[in-house]
């Protein structure tokens, strides 16, 4: 059993909206798999299909060697799920919810429960209605981590967490990977996926766009650079590996392949760069690159 999750040509529509349009996805056992896509790409629908909450229109779906719809109950003993939008019962405390979900999953390790409550600085005595969005998310995260399972399905688990908590969460995910757990992490934050994931799948409009290890994916990642120059940008415009170069006055914008970065930086320095902003490409830019052919050079 090498694949924890195996999806082939999965389709699901709601009325006239096609949420999934022939999706393929493979998650290997023991890996942290990033499931990336913009809002509305079908990430949550996929997870809900994997949980047997939705019935697929067509396609193949295997989860931990079973059928997510037919074997839902027995499969759910072996996995934990953190929903993207956590809704708690208003009059139950966080501690009660964690215990309830743990018991329903078939057991909860009290030591792990205490450890994660402490790590995430969560007060278990607060009523559900009194938690903030981030704290509601922590309740779901603690409930998932505290039960000892093979597979974690995490739907944008850090969207409400502050940077400090996000860091702690990343540590926890790494620990789980060390312990041999499989993790499917849905996200639209590329840096999070880069920090945590062994492999990544990118979906858009219900289809797989790209899938592979981070190294494989990095061939696509380009750094966006904006600089102000005192000299001529001519060399930069000609440079291989610098893409989408636009020049306006003394300002130059371009994106550089990772491999071409040293050459680009050298050329920038020769051209007398006196201000420089660089940032990694956003997921959005990655999509744009996949779907839109860019004009190579546009001098103004």
């Amino acid at each position, binding site marked *: 059993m090498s694949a924890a999750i195996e999806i082939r040509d999965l389709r699901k529509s709601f009325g006239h909206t096609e949420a999934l349009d022939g999706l393929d996805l493979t998650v290997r056992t023991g890996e942290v798999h990033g499931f990336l896509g913009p809002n509305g790409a079908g990430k949550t629908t996929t997870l*809900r299909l994997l*949980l*047997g*909450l*939705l*019935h697929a229109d067509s396609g193949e779906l295997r989860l931990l060697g079973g059928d997510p719809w037919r074997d*839902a*109950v*027995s499969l*759910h*003993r072996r*996995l934990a*799920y953190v*929903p993207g*939008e*956590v*809704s*708690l*019962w*208003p*009059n*139950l*405390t966080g*501690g*009660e*919810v*964690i*215990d*309830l*979900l743990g*018991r*329903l*999953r*078939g057991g909860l390790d009290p030591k792990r429960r205490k450890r994660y409550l402490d790590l995430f600085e969560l*007060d*278990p*005595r*607060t*009523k559900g*209605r*009194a938690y903030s969005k981030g704290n509601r998310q922590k309740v*779901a995260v603690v409930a998932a981590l505290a039960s000892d399972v093979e597979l974690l*399905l995490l739907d944008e688990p850090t969207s409400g967490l502050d940077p400090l908590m996000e860091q702690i969460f990343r540590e926890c995910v790494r620990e789980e990977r060390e312990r041999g757990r499989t993790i499917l992490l849905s996200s639209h934050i590329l840096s999070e996926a880069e920090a945590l994931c062994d492999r990544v799948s990118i979906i858009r409009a219900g289809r797989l766009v790209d899938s592979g290890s981070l190294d494989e994916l990095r061939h696509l990642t380009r750094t966006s650079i904006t600089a102000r120059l005192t000299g001529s940008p001519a060399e930069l415009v000609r440079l291989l590996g610098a893409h989408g170069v636009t020049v306006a006055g003394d300002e130059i914008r371009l994106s550089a392949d990772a491999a071409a970065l040293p050459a680009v930086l050298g050329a920038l320095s020769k051209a007398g760069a006196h201000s420089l902003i660089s940032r990694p490409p956003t997921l959005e830019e990655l999509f744009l690159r996949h779907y839109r052919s860019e004009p190579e050079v546009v001098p103004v």
Partner: protein
Amino acid sequence: MSATLTGTGALVRLALRRDRVRLPVWTSVFTAVAASSAAATAAIYPAAGDQRGAADSINSIPALVALYGPVYEPTLGATSVFKLTAFGAALIALLMIFTAVRHTRAEEEAGRRELLGSAVVGRFAGLAAAVVVTTVSSLVIGLFSAAGLAAAGLPVAGSLAFGLGWAGSGLVFGGLAAVTAQLTKSARAASGLAVVGLLAAYFLRAVGDSTGPRWLSWGSPIGWTQQVRPFAGDVWWVLALPLLVAAALVVVAVAAARARDLDAGLLPDRAGPAHAGRTLTGAWGLVWRLNRANLGAWLAGYVLLGLVLGGLAGNVGKMLDSAGARALIAALGGEQAMEDAFLAAEFSMAAVITSAYAITVLVRFRSEERALRVGPLLATALDRRRLMAGYLLLAVGAPVALLTSLGLTAGLAYGVRLGTPGTEVARLAGAGLAQLPAVWVLAGIAAALFGFLARAVAFAWVALTTFLLLGEFGTLLKLDRWVLDLSPFTHSPKLPGAAVQAAPLLWLTALGAVLVAAGVARFRQRDVSG
């Protein structure tokens, strides 16, 4: 205009947009029921003599007077509206309670008030918009119904007095709900609190009208709709009472809103347990935990209701002193039969109310699903059937407890008066339980809707209202037998005091079971929506 009210107009338009189906539908229902019942009464009692006879016999049956109020004068109009006045006023009150809470506390609980509050919207604009909507819709329903009565041939002045009386009830209870919406954090509790007020008001006038003292009816906003005496003198000044009380309630609501923060109630939250207790181990424990407080309140209400009904029943036969009334009682089968008829009428009403409880359980399940709390539960090793069984257990089982406690306490109170508590407890507990199969059919309808048409689970209310109206007005409107037979309540035995046939009870139970089973089977197959 004060800055705290900025944006009220926009919020009123938003509320009317959200209620663009709801309010017109209910307005049509009330108008149609008023007009058709006036037309039907005119057909049944064409001559003044017929009307006098009808009024006399109605007024001599305390069960009817307690339930609906008396016929104040033997005019065609007063005879036409005697069943509608208080009963319809209570239904309008219910509608306005839900409307007011829907646009205040429910919005706040859902977090939408916060979104609006950040826009150019004053502090009290939401409250003001809700008050405007309930006021306007009460008046529209009242005026349309008045027009319906007048169109059916009744005097215009009386029709107007009647319609405004109904509107007054809507104003008062809309105002009451505006107050309770400030007190509690949950919309459910806010509506519940206001409904308790409504039940108390209805009950007060039931006692005042039937056994007295008479002034009790004057203490009830529902009683005021009767004291306007439409078609029986049209006492216009009484209409000032609901206006004044509604205005006072709005003032109280504003004061309460001023005293609290957004999302807060007037009661603070306390910290709870850090660990789940032993009962919160699974789906059933969760369902029980989420519903136990509510069920406790219902049980307490039924115990109280049973004691009062049992106590009233003992008075029913003894209040009538005139020779004519005595003769009538004898003709109807004596005091015992009168008292049984009274209890039977109250028990069949209890069946309708108990069905409402069963429906709320399934509606609650659906709102849990919509609040995204069912998906995460089913993502654990929890079978869908088991989760739904938890709710069904409550929808089917709690009515047993409710009707049993009603029967037991009514039997106790009635039996103590007669000196035979043991007999009466058993007899009336049986009478309460005999209502169960019809209740289960309504639970089944709600369960089937939850499975097949989850979005439309609230249609169970339409079914219940239709059955209620069929029972109340079906005979008056001379509907065909088969139409009346559509209502499960038609087939419930009129206990105590009637013969029991097992067959209808058995097939009602079977029908309920089939509906429940179909709902469960479909829930297993359908998408759990968000």
